[in-house]
């Protein structure tokens, strides 16, 4: 199904059209917007993890200089009805197949009965400047009745634990099971078994641009515009419509330049609804730009899962059974519901072939910042559990970890491979294309081969130096539905205009989709006009999360173009007095095949399509040259990768250095190789950050200990190696252009690659690294003389 675009733009590293404005300092991020008469908002946030709110006294704040308005949760309850269920519903196809139970606590726009995490907003203050608003915020008096913090999800499940959401009388707000085969029987019969606990800690997206919302209400037209640093403008509009009690048609949501999202901006936050509400109340523009300190305590965190795994295997290291009971600590609220945890569950099997599998997942609330998807969205946790297990199996049997994987991998001649469990869209998972063993083999070759490494490792050990080899293989469902939209229109100038609900955050969408459209219409990318992330450009859209936009928007463009081309050819045929079948697209025109010069420009076809007297359309044909298509993918398409790294650890200081890091990656047909590489490099470094440096830490009372960049350590240019990339191209059979998603993948493996590498390096010390982050102190424990 892949189209070999020999002379086309797809497949070429076209430099980005976004760059010029960003390089010149002329980008437009939400904080760059300026309106006269703007009020600046500051949220007053709880400094206590769990408490009943007795009162939020705003009287002193209201009287402070420059303050125009103050509002607390109790006030808001009088002004707005309760927030309805905002989560995307699960498809019936899923709910009828998977045993599950979910409770959906709805976070109010401002806390009013209780605060449930440090950072939860209890009031908002509007003033003439951010400086004055912050001054006023210091004058707010909170009267709170402290309750015990809930920080350990396992303790939170025990009877007698304090409960975060009283109405449920439990902290267990989600639970599901999936299984295939007979895990109990297979475990019982397995010649070998191992049991381990894996902990993938709490870290998150932390984009360089914090969140921000600016809203302007037009009283004359009763319309409102919301600019937000956001990945899902149509979802925001839907929620705003409910909260503001306005038709969607009167609400415009726009995301301008977004300084990174990675998932954390992929759902609707309370602030995004409160700010427009306030703009309408005040009849003045209202602006809220999140600051970094706020970001750490109110923008969603991610990961944070505990896995108890039991695996059964044979003498050759073949996996016979895998059972995982895991807990996802979702924090105080759960905006994305089951999404992350279910991703974890179905990504556990990875690229491996085994028949007996069972997962029991529990989602637990704690008094921490709520969790939402972050690049990988549950897959890193799954890959950690399985890839550590592979190494542990190898260790038990004295086999090489690479060999154990190769033995277990689904061979190429068994693709497509039916996994036996459903994806979150309810469809049966089928790994549609790819060669997993080859990817691993290529990664091993790229690091110089296992045998060579083992020889080096042995020699180094003799010299008191510790080298380790770490592997991490994953598969990834990408391009998930339910849909993405595209409107394709031929502009009267002959340019091709595309509008979509996709929301870029730095991926270069304006560039890659202009390449796709250029090929579809035989124009130059510069002749493509892209309108993204704006609800006024297209009325229904989904947004950008889950590595989906390249797949879904390209397909929507493809199908819309197919339909529109037919109409354009019919009009051109009418103008040229020939049959549509005689025509082809060429260089911004439609012309007769084999007769150069006998053509009409797209511009003239567009003009001919206009309604009115003396138009150029065939008899009976509706006017206009525009088509809107909603692409509903059949299911996800599966990309995959093998990561391999060689590390050296200094057992006396704990310092880790990465000597080599290799990624062998498949994402099907590649639109823009340079941009794909950028995605993989960026994700790999984020993954390394999660493995080694980044950590959201809480104390036993629920105090957030990491509230600045001094504590939450992001990887810098001198912390990470060059990454070598090797590409495979197995076109997806599931969409017309053969694309697979690439946005998230590379963040999936690095934590387990590092854990495996360090465990391998420190094998002589019999040390295992089964949790993240991996800190120097843990490595340095190797050289301590004390018994372990």
């Amino acid at each position, binding site marked *: 199904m892949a189209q070999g675009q020999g002379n086309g733009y797809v497949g070429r590293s076209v430099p980005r059209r976004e760059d010029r404005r960003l390089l010149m300092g002329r980008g437009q991020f939400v904080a760059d917007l300026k309106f006269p008469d703007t009020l600046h908002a500051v949220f007053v946030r709880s400094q206590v993890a769990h408490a009943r709110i007795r009162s939020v006294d705003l009287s002193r704040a209201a009287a402070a200089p420059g303050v125009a308005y103050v509002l607390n949760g109790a006030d808001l309850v009088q002004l707005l009805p309760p927030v309805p269920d905002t989560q995307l519903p699960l498809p019936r196809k899923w709910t009828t197949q998977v045993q599950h139970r979910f409770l959906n606590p709805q976070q109010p726009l401002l806390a009013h009965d209780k605060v449930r995490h440090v950072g939860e907003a209890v009031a908002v203050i509007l003033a003439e400047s951010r400086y004055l608003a912050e*001054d006023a915020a210091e004058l707010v008096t909170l009267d709170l009745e402290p309750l015990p913090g809930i920080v350990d999800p396992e303790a939170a499940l025990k009877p007698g634990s304090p409960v975060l959401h009283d109405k449920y009388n439990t902290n267990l707000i989600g639970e599901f099971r999936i299984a295939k085969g007979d895990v109990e029987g297979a475990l019982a019969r397995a010649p070998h078994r191992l049991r381990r606990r894996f902990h993938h800690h709490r870290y998150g997206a932390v984009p360089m641009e914090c969140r921000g919302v600016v809203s302007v209400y037009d009283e004359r037209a009763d319309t409102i515009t919301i600019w937000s640093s956001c990945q899902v403008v149509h979802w925001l509009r839907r929620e705003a419509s409910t909260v503001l009690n306005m038709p969607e048609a009167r609400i415009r949501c726009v995301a301008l330049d977004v300084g990174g999202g990675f998932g954390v901006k992929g759902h609707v936050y309370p602030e995004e609804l409160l700010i427009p509400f306030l703009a309408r109340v005040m009849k003045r523009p209202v602006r809220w730009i999140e600051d970094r300190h706020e970001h750490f305590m109110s923008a969603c965190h991610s990961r944070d899962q505990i896995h108890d795994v039991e695996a059964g295997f044979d003498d050759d290291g073949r996996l016979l059974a895998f059972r995982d009971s895991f807990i996802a600590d979702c924090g105080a609220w759960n905006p994305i519901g089951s999404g992350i945890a279910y991703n974890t569950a179905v990504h556990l099997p990875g690229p491996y072939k085994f028949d007996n599998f069972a997962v029991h997942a529990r989602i637990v609330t704690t008094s921490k910042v709520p969790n939402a998807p972050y690049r990988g969205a549950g897959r890193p946790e799954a890959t950690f559990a399985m890839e550590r297990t592979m190494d542990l199996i190898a260790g038990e049997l004295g086999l090489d970890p690479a060999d154990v994987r190769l033995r277990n991998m689904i061979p190429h001649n068994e693709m497509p491979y039916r996994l036996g469990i459903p994806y979150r869209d309810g469809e049966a998972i089928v790994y549609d294309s790819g060669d997993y063993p080859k990817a691993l083999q290529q990664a091993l070759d790229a690091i110089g081969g296992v045998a060579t490494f083992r020889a080096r490792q042995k020699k180094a050990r003799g010299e008191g130096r510790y080298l380790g080899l770490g592997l991490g293989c994953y598969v990834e469902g990408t391009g998930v539905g339910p849909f993405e939209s595209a409107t394709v229109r031929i502009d009267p100038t002959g340019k091709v205009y595309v509008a979509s609900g996709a929301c870029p955050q730095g991926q270069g969408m304006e560039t890659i989709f202009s390449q796709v459209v250029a090929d579809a219409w035989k124009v130059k990318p510069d002749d493509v006009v892209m309108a993204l992330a704006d609800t006024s450009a297209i009325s229904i859209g989904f947004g950008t999360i889950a590595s989906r936009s390249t797949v879904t928007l390209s397909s929507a463009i493809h199908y819309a173009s197919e339909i529109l081309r037919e109409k354009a050819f019919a009009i051109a045929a009418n103008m040229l007095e020939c049959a549509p079948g005689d025509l082809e697209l060429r260089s911004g025109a439609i012309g007769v095949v084999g007769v150069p010069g006998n053509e009409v420009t797209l511009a003239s076809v567009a003009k001919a399509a206009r309604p009115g007297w003396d138009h150029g359309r065939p008899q009976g044909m509706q006017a206009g040259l525009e088509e809107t298509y909603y692409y509903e993918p059949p299911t996800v398409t599966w990309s995959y990768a093998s990561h391999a790294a060689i590390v050296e650890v200094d057992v*006396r*200081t704990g310092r880790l250095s990465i000597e080599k890091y290799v990624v062998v990656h498949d994402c099907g047909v590649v639109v823009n190789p340079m941009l794909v590489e950028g995605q993989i490099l960026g994700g790999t470094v984020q993954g390394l950050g999660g493995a080694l440096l980044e950590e959201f830490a809480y104390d036993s009372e629920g105090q957030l200990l990491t509230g600045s960049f001094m*504590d939450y350590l992001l990887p810098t240019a*001198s*912390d990470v190696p060059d990454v070598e990339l090797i590409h495979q191209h197995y076109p997806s059979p599931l969409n017309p252009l053969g694309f697979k998603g690439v946005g998230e993948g590379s963040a999936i493996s690095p934590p387990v690659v590092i854990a495996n590498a360090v465990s391998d390096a420190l094998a002589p010390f019999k040390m295992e690294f089964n949790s993240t982050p991996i800190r120097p*102190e843990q490595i*340095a424990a190797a050289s301590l003389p004390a018994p372990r």
Partner: protein
Amino acid sequence: MKPASFEYHAPATVDEALALLQANGPDSRVLAGGQSLVPMMNFRLAAPSVIVDLNRIRDLAYIRVQGDAVCIGAMTRQRAIEFSAIVADKLPVLSAAIKLVGHLPTRSRGTIGGSIANADPAAELPMVLQALEGAVVVRGPKGQRTIAASALFQDAMTTSITPVEILVEVRLPVMPAGAGFAIEEFARRHGDFAIAAVTVVILREGQGCARARIATAGISSHSERLRAAEQILEQHGLGDDAIARAAEAAASAVEPLSDRQASAAYRRQLTQVLTERAVRRAAA
């Protein structure tokens, strides 16, 4: 994260600055490079009601050789120190250390006086002052006084400089010809404050060690000298055994901090390793 309001003064002389501090009491702070103070103010962890900006005072930034010492004005930017030929020639350990202090853009504004007066336990410049047995000159309402490094640092973020005094000059003895030095720092990332750091300056004498000076950063509540380790080297030379024993003595002598970054035990372990490695390199 906007700072609270303050009354701002930018005096032209040290005396004016001192008068302002006297007049406004403990709620006034001097502003030097601002790389530590302004972040604290943006977090509102510090909210001085009066800021006395030292950046407009002339003649507080200089690097000059005076006798056997290099005198550096307190407002000398770390960047100027980084690129100073005098410092490279006379105080090479300071040239090496300055590259570990933050990043070039923070060194454009950060000052040597500010860093030393701030006395962050994990800062490198106090450690260098200790290792070189330097001193600071401080001016106050009662006049000028010199404080030796060993008498300067009292606790985390605490020196013996009083709130009505201003550090005006840093004096560092010129390193003797042939002195070996090394800095071993362990930080999570380049440019971060040290979890543990050791600076060693050694003057060999034949096979032995005429003088050893070992100073720390990041390990305890303030930079300190590891005198027991120094004595072992001065008495027993620079062979492997002496170095190992000196490193052990260093580890035993310190009272390491315990925090989220590192436990006391780990800092103690680092003290030993870093001392050993720094001495080896300095002696080579």
